[in-house]
């Protein structure tokens, strides 16, 4: 069976996002995009499933602009995915999670669908909508917050969902779309020879406009402002010659100003 893993390039963890000149998005100038966070876990999970059942192959699928989308797909190939498919779309298309899900659904419908795994949410937008919207559009079950995903003896999958104060275990047939919380293992790192090899593997490309019923300007929502939270004010540094003096001032502030002590 083919496992499809959905991935999205996100800014490297250390990136400091700045609003763009038009104030509508964040400035992509100089930002480095990588495969990260929940998506790394999703790829790891897909590879673990491949390793646990002979005959399983893994295809990485991503939607977005050049060059970042190609680069994360190559990262996925270097980690051990067998195939990579790229839905070429302008960066703006990524701002509309339902539109993204529609394009992914149109792409996936072209072939029989098996198991589809996505990260629970992407690190940059954190909307978490794509896997569930995709499941609804494909008319298959969809689950978020999944851990412990395994093949079932019946040819489907079993998995857990960890809730606030309980753990549920589920079994499902495929096709199914899974929003993955965590893989069983820490994500692996690519080995140097596989990185070199991944550069030479083909990547299947489809323009978003060529997918049935899809047009990049179909988005029904638009973000009109992007702002950074204003820096917090009111922090106070307590000076003092000795720890005792500092502690005494702190207690006085907590009691008299913050009113959190009697």
């Amino acid at each position, binding site marked *: 069976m083919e496992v499809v893993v959905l991935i999205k390039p996100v800014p490297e963890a250390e990136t400091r996002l700045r609003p763009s000149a038009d104030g509508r998005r964040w400035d992509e100038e100089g930002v480095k995009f990588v495969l990260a966070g929940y998506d790394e876990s999703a790829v790891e999970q897909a590879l673990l499933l491949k390793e646990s059942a002979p005959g399983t192959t893994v295809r990485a699928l991503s939607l977005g602009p050049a060059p970042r989308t190609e*680069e994360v797909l190559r*990262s996925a190939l270097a980690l051990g995915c067998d195939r990579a498919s790229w839905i070429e779309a302008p960066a703006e298309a990524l701002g509309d999670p339902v539109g993204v899900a529609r394009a992914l659904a149109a792409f996936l419908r072209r072939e029989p669908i098996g198991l589809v795994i996505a990260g629970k949410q992407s690190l940059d937008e954190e909307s978490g909508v794509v896997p569930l919207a995709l499941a609804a559009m494909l008319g298959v079950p969809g689950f978020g917050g999944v851990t412990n995903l395994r093949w079932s003896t019946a040819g489907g999958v079993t998995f857990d969902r960890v809730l606030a104060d309980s753990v549920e275990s589920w079994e499902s047939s495929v096709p199914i779309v899974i929003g993955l919380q965590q893989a069983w293992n820490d994500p692996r790192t690519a080995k140097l*020879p596989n*990185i*070199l090899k991944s550069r030479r593997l083909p990547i299947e490309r489809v323009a978003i406009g060529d997918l049935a019923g899809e047009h990049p300007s179909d988005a029904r929502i638009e973000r009109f402002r992007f702002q950074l939270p204003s820096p917090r004010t009111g922090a106070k540094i307590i000076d003092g010659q000795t720890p005792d003096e500092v502690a005494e001032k702190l207690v006085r502030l907590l009691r008299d100003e913050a009113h959190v002590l009697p």
Partner: protein
Amino acid sequence: MPDFSLSPEQVSLVDLARKFARTVMAPQAAECDRTGRFPEEIYRKAFDAGLVNLNVPQEYGGSGLSLLDQCLIVEELAYACAGMTTSIIANCLALEPILLGGTVEQRERFLKPFCAKYQLASFCLTEPTGGSDAGALRTRATRDGSDYLLDGEKCFITNAPHASLYTVFATVDPSQRHRGITAFVVPRSTPGITPGPDEEKMGHRASSTSTIRFEQVRVPAENRLGAEGEGFALAMRTLDQTRTPIGALATGIAQAALDHAARYALQRRSFGRPIAEHQAIQIKLANMVQRVRAARLLTWQAAAAIDAGARGTLESSIAKCFASDTAMEVADEAIQTFGGYGYMKSYPVEKLLRDAKLTQIYEGANEIQRLVIARELLATYA
């Protein structure tokens, strides 16, 4: 006009090395520096990631990288720990003579099984009586039927106690000086080889350095690289290849020192403001970043020239000499920027100075690099 931007493939190599350096090497660096422990588990992981044997072609089980790509990786590794990096790249140095001077049969016989699993190799040139004057080495290779018997002692040999393969330079006739020097590949399992105890070093303490004795070590003639007397030229051609990555290693140390100094300068306050706002500190940082960038560019230039087929003696000597002097200077200024804390072992910059010092000494001391640079330079005017 040269293009100084990295290809997407090079960016992914840098990413891999950076991730390895920061997640696997850096967390152990201070402990290994303090105790002098040889972190074999890290070298094993480096092998698994494909970061050892960078210069060996893929057909023999190595990574088969260009010199420039090797330099990109070495700088990232050295940023986290120069000592570990010295031990990781010692294989490149030890295997290079087989790549340059070995027959196809020898490359198959030695490199394939060696690179198939985690193993270390050592390059054995320097002797207690002299390193710079390699032509005066004394280890003897005496012909005995179809074999040679090796006798002598080498010193300051990286990884010697941990290696399973040695490339050894010995003389078949000391009276002929460098024309007598001959290179051999010697498996550790050969009787008569005794590595000494680890030396206590000032820096690069995660690396292992020791003497190694050869007593009546029997080596078959088919383990000789090239003809008798070709060993000196082979050693020099090897160093022409491996000197440039030492420039990259030194650049990694210097970049780390600069990063620490700049971050600290923004945090530390004196006279009511961050010390980064004092012009004296700004001038230091401005000088440091110039040197670091120049060191990197000289290293890239030497690597690119050699990748394009040049012998690169001049370029690689300039890169190694400039980058190692830079590492010393920048680490020194980083300590000064930290003030008293810079002198403390609980802060990271004094290690950088101790690590930087070696880069001025090994793979050809900088005095020798300057002799070479001047000789090559003057030859272009003669």
